[in-house]
């Protein structure tokens, strides 16, 4: 698995400013092809339309469908059982992280994020996942 195999990323984030910043950071600094959706439902629809991102970055605290629900819905789609998914969130309670780990979320990136570090963090997350599977 080469890191250059990571090309396309789906970002799901309800705050429009943060969504734009994450998109710009990952595309301009990380050189990735980023598509962003404002909600869990939007993400599911985007995936259902036949798009296959190499990786998905999910916000956790979102109205309607939160990150965990979105994660479970994505995993229930047969063609996305193996797609690396990580959380990007400010809510980092140790109990919560344990629960996420049991669900199969191995990487939790914390907000506020640093644009200088975020692209590498996302790439590391992807490599780790690929090495595990």
């Amino acid at each position, binding site marked *: 698995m080469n890191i250059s195999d990571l090309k396309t990323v789906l970002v799901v984030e309800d*705050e429009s*400013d*943060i969504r734009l*910043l994450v998109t*710009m*950071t990952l595309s*301009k*600094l990380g050189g990735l092809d980023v598509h962003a959706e404002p909600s869990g439902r939007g993400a599911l629809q985007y995936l259902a339309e036949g798009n296959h991102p190499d990786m998905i970055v999910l916000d956790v605290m979102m109205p309607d469908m939160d990150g965990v629900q979105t994660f479970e819905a994505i995993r229930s789609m047969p063609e996305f059982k193996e797609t690396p998914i990580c959380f990007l969130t*400010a809510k980092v*309670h*140790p*109990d919560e992280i344990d629960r996420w780990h049991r669900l199969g979320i191995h990487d939790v990136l914390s*907000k*506020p*994020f*640093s*644009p*200088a570090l975020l692209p590498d963090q996302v790439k590391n997350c992807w490599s780790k996942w690929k090495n595990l599977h």
Partner: protein
Amino acid sequence: MGIAQDITKIRSLESDLLISDRRFSDAFHSAAHGMGLVSIEGRWLDANAALCKMLGYEKNELLLLDFQRITYPDDLEPDLGLVKKLLDDEILSYQMEKRYFHKNGKIIYVLLSVSLVRDMQNVPLYFVSQIQDLTESKELEKQAVIRQKYLQLVLDAVADGIVTLDEQLVIEKHNPGATRILDHAGAELSGLSILNFIQKDSRDKFEDFCKAFITDNDGKDQKIEVLGQRSQKTDYELECHISKLEIENKIKLVLVLRDITQLKRTERMKSEFVSTVSHELRTPLTAIKGSLELISLGALGEVNQSLLPVIDISIRNTLRLSSLINDLLDIDKLSAGKLELNVQEHRLMPIIEDAIALNSRFAEEYKVSLELISGYDCWVNVDIQRFHQILANYLSNAAKFSPLNSQVEIAVYPVGRHVRVAVKDYGPGISDDLKPRLFTRFSQGDGSDSRKKNGTGLGLAISKELATAMSASVGFTSQNSQGSTFYIDLPCKTAGEMRAQAATFREVS
């Protein structure tokens, strides 16, 4: 004449009287309580030493007075009434409590017993009065009544409920506050078990707590919070201070009850408010900081050099804002007891060296150097991130308050079973009025100082609470104008002890 005939009989009678008189006289004068002879008109005919002393008169002074003169006005009429009955032969003697005036004007309380002596023809001759001084016992009684009344007023006035329980947790006594808090619809509380007023699910816990308190406590009061249950079935949060006393070999529990429902609600609201506001502040701050960093990283194209200083200012200030928000969230979590620590065994010196390296740049801004003066190799149990937070707080404070071109000295050395990390600066020192509240929230030199030094005044309070959570303690020494030393003492193991421990593990496994 019959007189001549009867003379022998009379003589013998006189001698009898004489003997009895002498006996009476001895008894009269040596009696411990006051005795007096009073004429039919009320004049004192004789008084013994005890009576003179009681009333404060010399005997000759007293014999110039009548009893009416020294009787408290309200008591005169009942006394005269009884005197009249005695003279009218309706009664043989009387006894009454009455008051006299002492010569010095003070009132004395006495128990007066009076009988009347008549002659052979039944003509009244004089009264014999026995007077027992009750002033002291009256005074004690009065004091006891006042004390009782005072105590009752205090108990009635306190807003808290106070109840006493016997060993079976049955209520014996209570104040009106208890009736109000337990809200027993005005019915009598005494004789009911306190458990009736505790919510069903809390009852066992409360009972166990009380029973355990009866059998084994170290004499200290304890506190428990339970759900109370009122007659109309509404639950409320009840705080209960419990103490124990022993009266005539029986153990009583004293409970001080307080309805803390409102207090808890306010606390929760405050906590929710702080965390909501902080989270709401974080999102826009993340957006600002992210944007500025993207610009400064050149992700959006080359940046005009002249813009870099203001971009730098903006970034530094967003960092300052986010550390303030983090402080607020920390203090909120700490006070709610919700802060989770990841405490693990670490070698101390590498952490200290890291902390010095991490904080050197900040110190340089104040033209201050951080110097490690002495080290001590040992292992400590800390949450490494939080320990760094404490060290950063100490180091940055020291740098901020240091004179230009001075140094901040870091010394690590053992103190008993602990290791001390001390940070010394050569700044102005801590003023005496600030010393006692230095480790409390929002304390800094003064308002103007706080602005100049860029602080929230929360850092030391957080450091102290974090240290406590890691079983460490914090402190400082400071002499005005001679700088300050802040330290943290951590329980530690030496490298030797660690090796011994590792060896034991190997043997066991």
